[in-house]
């Protein structure tokens, strides 16, 4: 028989490949070069490691780096834990379960800028509803978005509010995949509900955990929209993260420096996420 041409031709991949390579791979590789230059889009003057040196020398650039790590860990951590707890709650058969699932998920779908503006108004130190509510309980609410000590965490809270619904959803799916037999067996063995949670639920929901942690970590490291919509990185530099630092350098016309920031962000994600994924995949689950 003559050689058959495959019904799954390679050229099917071509359109996607062209778009992906030109608009994603090429810029990513080019960024490695441009980060070593002083660039104004027309001329690129090679300056070696100067941009990187600047990034690690200027306190506010370093702070952006540190803030990025804090922000990612906090949002990812809380979303994972809270998401799982909410998922357990929303699969336990309580009243209004279906409605509550939708309510928790809805913030995921709405405009980030809209969320930012709304919470900036809600978090106003004297006029905002949150502090007025706290005030009626006798608590003096802090300046959520303008107190440098807590600004970053306030923004993280908004991020968590917006994103926890997605984590919950993924966990709900993960929980549904656990066969009830395991719970039966553990109950026969006399396990309490808490023990069931730790010994059965948590280990068996691991695929969902991996997904949630990885996605929220990457998202947290790259986060920009909410920060920009609420504090623009302020007060001072207190809530600046890498993405907002990159944007500010871009706006100021320091294109080489902005690109260096991009490379640092990429390295950061790679350094954190790859080992984590590997670690997740190598851990055995003993049943």
């Amino acid at each position, binding site marked *: 028989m003559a050689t058959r041409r495959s019904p799954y031709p390679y050229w099917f991949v071509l359109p996607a490949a062209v778009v992906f390579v030109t608009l994603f791979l090429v810029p990513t590789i080019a960024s490695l070069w441009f980060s070593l230059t*002083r660039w*104004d*889009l027309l001329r690129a003057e090679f300056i070696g490691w100067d941009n990187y040196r*600047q990034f690690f*020398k*200027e*306190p*506010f650039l370093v702070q952006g780096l540190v803030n990025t790590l804090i922000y990612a860990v906090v949002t990812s951590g809380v979303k994972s834990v809270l998401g799982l707890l909410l998922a357990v709650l929303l699969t336990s058969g309580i009243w209004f379960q279906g409605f509550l699932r939708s309510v928790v998920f809805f913030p995921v779908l709405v405009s980030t800028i809209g969320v930012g503006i709304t919470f900036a108004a809600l978090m*106003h*130190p*004297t006029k905002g509803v949150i502090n007025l509510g706290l005030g009626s309980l006798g608590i003096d609410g802090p*300046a959520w*978005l*303008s*107190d*440098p000590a807590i600004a970053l965490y306030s923004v993280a809270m908004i991020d968590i509010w917006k994103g926890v619904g997605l984590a919950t959803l993924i966990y709900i799916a993960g929980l549904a995949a656990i066969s009830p037999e395991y719970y039966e067996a553990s109950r026969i063995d006399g396990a309490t509900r808490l023990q069931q949670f730790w010994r059965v639920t948590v280990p068996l929901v691991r695929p969902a955990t991996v997904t949630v942690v990885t996605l929220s970590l990457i998202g947290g490291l790259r986060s920009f929209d909410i920060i920009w919509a609420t504090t*623009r*990185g*302020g*007060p*001072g*530099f*207190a809530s600046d993260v890498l993405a907002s630092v990159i944007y*500010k350098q*871009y*706006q*100021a*016309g*320091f294109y080489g*420096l902005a690109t260096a920031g991009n490379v640092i962000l990429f390295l950061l994600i790679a350094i954190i996420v790859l080992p984590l994924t590997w670690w997740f995949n190598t851990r055995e689950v003993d049943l």
Partner: protein
Amino acid sequence: MKTIRHSAALAGAIILAAGLAEAEVTLSVLIDNNPETISSMEAVTAAYTAANPDVTFDIEQRTGGAEGDNIVKTRLATGEMADIFNYNSGSLFQALKPEETMADLTGIAGQANVLDSFKQVVTANDGTVRGVPFGPAMGGGIFYNRKIYAELGLSVPKTWDEFMANNAKVAEAGKVPVITTFGDTWTSQLFVLADYFNVQAEVPTFAADYTANKAKYATTPAAMRGFEYLEAVFKANYMNEDFGVAKFEDGMRMVATGEGAHYPMLTFGIGTVKQNYPDNLADLGFFAQPGPDAAKNGLTVWMPAALYVPAASPNQEEAIKFLDFVASVEGCNTMIGASGASGPYLIKGCELPADVPPAVTDMLPYFQTDGMTAPALEFLSPVKGPALEQITVEVGSGIRPAAEAAALYDQDVEKQAKQLGLPNW
């Protein structure tokens, strides 16, 4: 009958054709969101459209401060700028590379009306004039509330210590001593920038040395004082409760209505009060930022912002005609009519009206005496870093000590100087 109808039709056609021959143009305008800027621009564009009905305007507002600066820079770089835009003159103007990005306005008729002192600050490196003045000259100092001063028997301070003493009395009386509005980060720079008169009184060569990378904020005690003042006000707890989120308009409201006693600001704030709180205009006073020496007390002066036309504008001709009007005495009077005069205008023959607000009357003596004004640093040196207002917010919020902040700012300007390609950096 037929002939009449035909003639009428013909006449109608001719009129229609004539109307179409004058193409309708809509000029896009990008201005900052300052109330005085907005009212001036609306007035002057309305007047122009009244005289030239086929030219209409589409006005867009942008934020001020560093973010606004960056919006302007980015839009110019990406060719997305409006036909007309307002922006600072002086070193900020230089940073936009005007020889490359803006239309040449040297030859227009209106330039004959513009005072030479202004032309200097909108002249590009190749000697061409690229802007026309938009608004009055401004002083940078401190607004104060006359009523509070009268009540507490305070007098205008001539030294910083006197100022702080006044603040202490105001605090005791339960009012806000120094109104702070970090919600608009650019307002945090005033203590540093408005102090320049005092700096150059002590160190006359600072501007030149600074540009040549020989003098620094961190190593020049006179220059560091501005940062120290911010720190002092924070430490003494003289600010309003919502200082982190309050905005410029809140600030002007508070000082005019007497919620607070002092508000460090540029004098264009008078226009805001005139528009929004005209009944309190008489209570608004102004004095220059006091330094260490009562004998050497003078006003740091800002040339007004200017209107520019980007080189890439498709409606350059029409836009330039409009700028011609802005630079005329009629244009100037239109602006004064709408926003009031919050300072002297830079157009020859454009006089201040007789009934200027008291704050302006406070300001004029500085202009009338020799040696009592000095241009702000940004008009003497092209070196200004983009992160200053964030650094000053840090100092004013107690995040960073003054000495560190000054050193940080020195580092920040390095980036700008190198990007501009200045020698010696």
